[in-house]
């Protein structure tokens, strides 16, 4: 396994790029919503993305963010 410093060294740029892509998507969505006659759709998925960002940003959690996100994105069990 890698050391914490090695994790930062090897993955920082990838993570930065992924965050920029996500930021660009949210900006694109906001721009589309701000256009005349283009109100936000009644679609829970964008709200889900914001909830997911809160999970990602939670520094106190155990290292199980991916699992928590996948459960969040799952249809409820029967």
């Amino acid at each position: 396994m890698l050391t914490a410093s090695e994790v930062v060294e090897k993955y920082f740029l990838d993570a930065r790029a992924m965050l920029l892509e996500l930021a660009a998507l949210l900006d694109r969505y906001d721009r589309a919503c701000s256009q005349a006659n283009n109100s936000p759709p009644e679609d829970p998925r964008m709200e889900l993305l914001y909830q997911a960002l809160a999970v990602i940003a939670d520094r106190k959690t155990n290292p199980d963010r991916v699992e928590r996100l996948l459960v969040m994105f799952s249809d409820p069990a029967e």
Partner: protein
Amino acid sequence: MRIIQPHYHGIARTTQDYQRMAYAGVVAVAEPAFWAGFDRKYPETFLDYFRQISEFEPTRAAQYGIRHYCWVAVNPKEAENPSLSREVLRHMPEFFQKPTVLGVGETGLHKSTRNECEIFEAQIELAIKYDQLLLVHTPHLQDKLRGTKRILEILRRAPISPERVWIDHVEEHTIRACKDAGYWVGFTLYPITKCSPARAVDMIERYGADRTLVNSSADWGPSDPATLHECIFEFRRRGHSEQEAIELFHNNPARFLGQNPKFTIRPIRIEELEPTAVG
């Protein structure tokens, strides 16, 4: 490094894949029967498909020194048609006799409907009756958690040895339950949307490499056999040894698939030789 690609849909790929996999060290592939992108109407279409993957594909792979094995099954999506499925199931034992057919797969669930569950159970029974290995597809995306729970309930009731069952496409929210129940698990690596090579290595580090198979995506959708090599690179760059990589990407598939005596590739170990005097 020698690699076994345990889940590969050659029928949906060009011959160039085999060439590139051979260049990259792949010595064997195993091809589960799957959905063709449209729902087939006739049992005979399945039977011709089974002939293609058990008779023709091995010859295409052999041109590049790759051994080709396969599995036969009605996939979960088309299991929604029970009468068609039952007719196909009636003929599957004929294919168990073929020299490269390893078992029943990929069966499992897609939307976890009653019909899918019925045909999944029938295919488990067939695997038990004919002493075949079992490869289980778990649903994708938002259906995976619910579908995997249902699959585990169904398997728990069946008199089948967990070590002869491979539950595929596991992710962080489903791996623990499958491994805890004693089954083999598989990661399927996609360029987008599903499990990435880095996440697969994270799970290997967290849950161990035992009873674990790694396969690339390789079908008619956006997929890439080279994701398997990307995963090997990721595994090695985190400091895992070459022998550990061989254990995971060659020996584990050899151990699982080798439970069927038709699969004759054995686990290997690298050995450093003593230096010899020159001259």
